[in-house]
């Protein structure tokens, strides 16, 4: 990544100037306003703040670099509520996203859950400066997960089975799960499940896993491709009422960056070759004891997929 010290210094100086001048600014940071355009042709790739998304972004970045496209990495920005406005404002150009959650972000009333339907609706609801490339078969859903012991003891296989226990269950998940439509509100609406309490932890990270393991929470929101699920022998509860919509991996890109045909071609190839089993295996490898460099994991996968 290139970030010149001088540019930063100038930016800081300019910012001080603004501060000293006492200028008030825009009161709504989500309002669309032009950001500094990236250098001609450079694709600024962003990612959310969890490992798998960062890896997908790294795969995009590495593949594009191999094709001679200049890229800039802006990984670990936060949740969708943070990176999407940045994408919309042109501060970043490309993110790997997931169709179902993206749809509910764009339209909280959306009810589509089937993969194609979700994809279509996202495409229709995206702001005009953004474009959805073809989606991958690879899917990574949020899921309600419990420990094997808790599942056996209470005879649980689906979220429906959990309903009668909800008033006694502490539920753990990322802070945003409390408000997102598929989160606590969705579980309440579709399954009539009101938990004893919600513990705000992290997005499929060590806090949630540890809290589930040590009994701080009895059920938690984890990602279906998470390596910690097989590692800890956790049980993913079925979702018969489709609270969690289809979540296919999909590149969301600034339209201005699709003029270079290499960009879309490369990303499409990646989406075609990736599937859920491979994504799960990649997550497991990243979490393995030897802690491989994600850039290496990305390169290895691109090689094995024949993209170079």
């Amino acid at each position, binding site marked *: 990544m290139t970030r010149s010290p001088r540019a*930063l210094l100038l930016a800081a100086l300019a910012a001080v100037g603004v501060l000293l001048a006492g200028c008030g600014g825009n009161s709504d*940071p989500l309002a669309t306003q032009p950001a500094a355009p990236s250098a001609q042709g450079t694709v600024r790739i*962003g990612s959310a703040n969890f*490992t798998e998304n960062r890896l997908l972004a790294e795969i995009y970045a590495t593949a594009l670099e191999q094709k001679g496209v200049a890229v800039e990495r802006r990984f670990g920005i936060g949740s969708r509520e943070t990176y999407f*406005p940045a994408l919309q404002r042109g501060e970043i150009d490309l993110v790997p996203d997931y169709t179902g959650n993206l749809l509910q972000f764009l339209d909280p009333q959306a009810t589509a859950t089937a993969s194609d339907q979700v994809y279509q609706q996202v495409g229709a609801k995206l702001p005009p400066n953004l474009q959805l490339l073809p989606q991958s078969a690879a899917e990574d859903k949020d899921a309600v997960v419990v420990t094997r012991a808790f599942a056996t003891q209470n005879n649980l296989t689906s979220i429906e089975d959990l309903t009668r226990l909800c008033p006694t269950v502490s539920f753990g998940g990322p802070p945003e799960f409390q408000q997102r439509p598929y989160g606590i509100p969705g579980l309440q609406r579709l399954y009539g499940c009101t938990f004893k309490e919600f513990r705000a932890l992290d997005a499929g990270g060590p806090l949630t896993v540890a809290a589930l393991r040590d009994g701080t929470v009895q059920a938690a929101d984890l990602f279906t491709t998470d390596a910690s699920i097989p590692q800890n022998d956790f049980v993913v509860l079925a979702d018969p009422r489709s609270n969690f919509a289809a979540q296919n991996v999909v590149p969301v890109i600034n339209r201005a960056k699709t003029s270079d045909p290499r960009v879309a071609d490369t990303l499409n190839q990646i989406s075609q070759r990736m599937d859920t089993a491979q994504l799960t295996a990649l997550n497991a490898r990243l979490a393995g004891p030897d802690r491989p460099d994600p850039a290496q994991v990305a390169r290895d996968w691109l090689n094995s997929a024949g993209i170079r």
Partner: protein
Amino acid sequence: MRAFGYDIDELVVDHVLLAVVPVVLGLVIALPLGWWAHLSPGARRVLVPLSGALYTIPSLALIVFIPLVLGTPILSPVNVGLTLIIYTVALLVRSVAEALDAVPDTVTTAAVAVGYRPVGLLLGVQLPLAVPVLTAGLRVASVSSFSLVTVGALVGIQSLGTLMTDGFQQDYTAMVATGIVGSILLAFVFDALWLALGRALTPWARARQGV
């Protein structure tokens, strides 16, 4: 150097720039404000408590509010930089005022008697004498700045803090520890630099010690 999937050199450069530039700019802003507080009891009554209050705002909140107020890009390092400038100014205004207060009246009176005007008095007499106290304040601001830069990693602003947040996500202790040790080492290196700079600017102090 590459480790844990990151270009460490780049993280170090970002960390240093983000920590040092705001401290220097903060000092530049704090000097006139501190001087004003030194001269005017009224200004001091406002400036000192105000800077104390600014210092209590949690850093994550400041980093997120700056784009809200100034319209800067959400992902801009400027948000972290401005946050640190605010903390530095908050910390140094009082230091500067007290450093100037500590210059003995006999010295200032003598300087005025030989024809120093206020600005000349400040730059030629008071500031040089205040350097030791200023250096002490600057060192505190600098050390805490190196530590606070890491909070930016929560909003995707790169620094050694990135190793902490990402290492945490990946449940990777060595990565977190590397970020911590690196951040401390950088803070110490610059602490030594400020100290050396302060000494270099006050040769008379050393001469006196030598007597």
